[in-house]
């Protein structure tokens, strides 16, 4: 699903965010990305969803070389990559419903289907009662769950979650992990960047550690 070969990323003028990163994620895998703050986790995820472009190396997602992808193809591809951004990127002036529904509306899904899907997701994450609130007027942890719901909404083939439980307590963290696991069961490939040891300590999924822009553990299959 995701192939990175000797990828480097420099933020001008001189910040080496990634150095010779090679990583291969199989379809249907679920991997955890860990590492100190500033190690380059977010940058790696940004490259995969082509929010940033690499300076060196080869990035391939679902068979597409992201350095040479056509805009129209990229748009299609993005519809099938769900991303829960570390800073959420919600629209504070729009309702929770609208925020989640957006991800499906851009794919022209039928409204009735969207309604059902949004409600089911919010219910699983325990914020069904906030469906009509403005996204800017709910607690931070609730916003984080909205971001996760949006990422999962369009049944993506690949889901990138950047620190998905940073503002969540233990109980809700479990619900989020359960949701992600169930998506994985249904075939979604997952890459989760996290500091929260509780969600990856006892996992049997692959855990990758980053340090100063490099992968320190060899990327072994589970």
């Amino acid at each position: 699903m995701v192939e990175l070969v000797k990828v480097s990323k420099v933020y001008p003028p001189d910040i080496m965010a990634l150095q010779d990163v090679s990583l291969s994620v199989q379809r249907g895998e679920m991997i955890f990305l860990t590492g100190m703050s500033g190690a380059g986790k977010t940058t790696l995820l940004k490259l995969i969803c082509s929010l940033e472009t690499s300076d060196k190396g080869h990035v391939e997602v679902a068979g597409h070389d992201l350095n040479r992808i056509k805009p129209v193809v990229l748009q299609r591809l993005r519809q099938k990559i769900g991303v829960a951004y570390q800073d959420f990127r919600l629209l504070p002036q729009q309702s929770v419903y609208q925020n989640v529904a957006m991800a499906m509306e851009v794919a022209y899904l039928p409204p009735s289907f969207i309604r059902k899907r949004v409600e089911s997701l919010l219910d699983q994450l325990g914020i069904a009662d906030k469906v009509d609130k403005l996204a800017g007027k709910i607690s931070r942890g609730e916003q984080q769950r909205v971001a996760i719901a949006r990422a999962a909404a369009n049944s993506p083939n690949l889901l990138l979650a950047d620190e998905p439980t940073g503002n969540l307590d233990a109980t809700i963290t479990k619900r989020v992990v359960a949701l992600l696991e169930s998506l994985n069961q249904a075939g979604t490939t997952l890459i989760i960047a996290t500091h929260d040891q509780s969600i990856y300590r006892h996992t049997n999924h692959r855990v990758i550690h980053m340090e100063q822009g490099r992968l320190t553990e060899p990327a072994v299959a589970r």
Partner: protein
Amino acid sequence: MSFFPYILKQTGRNLRKTWATQVMTLLTVSLSVLIFSFFYLIHTNILKAGARLGDELRLIVYLDDEVVPAMQEQLKKRITDFTEVENIVFISRQEAFTRLGDELGNDQDVLQDMTPAFLPPSIEIYPKKNLKTLTTIKRFSDYLITLPGAQKVQYGQEWVERFGYFNSLLRIVVLLSAGLLVISTVFMVSYTIRLTLFTRHEELELLRLLGATNTYIQGPLLMEGLLQGFMGSGLGLLFLFLLFSWIQLRFSGPGFLKLFDFTFFPPVVTCTILMVGVLLCSLGSIVSIRKFLRV
């Protein structure tokens, strides 16, 4: 679900969400259209008035002696050699005398002891409408003085000159202000649209990240631009019409109407202004949108 209802739905939603900015933009557009079309209206009316005033312009060539009919043809030819004219009238001593009598009215008795002999015969020349500028009239007059037997050429120099200067000054004012205003209109509209987009920067960015197609993103914005342009121009023209009606009502003294047959734009021009407004706004949208579409 198909594409079109989405666009409409999205547009409606946007308009509702950002109505304050929308109203602002609308007002800006209509104000700009109002100002521009106001000047344009004045300009067209002044052109018309100028044409009317010019109708009454005539040049009088005073002659030494009565022109015999045979000569008339030759003089006519020499005059039309220089330029086409509307009409040429020969006035004999007798005619001039009668006319003076008419002009004096009750004072006619002062002419009692006179013979027509003391008034010189003349040729009155009514120039074509294209002969409007002062310099051409002057040159024409210089030419006429060279006609055989011409004593003097008169055309109300002082007043014609004055009116001409005035007219051209006014035209400069109108043109300059129209220029200024077109610049400011385009500037303001694109500025406003850019600012509107700037406030919705996050939304557009997010749509891009969610994989929305260009049409999905551009469609509603373009619709908005179209609507803004249409309603803004419409409102502007409506205001102008109200202003126009008010002016007409307020200043339609008989003398005023005589000089100025102050009329509104014909429907074609109205439609053109409307279309240009729509086009400008759409264009402004498109140009500004393009900046956000680097995928």
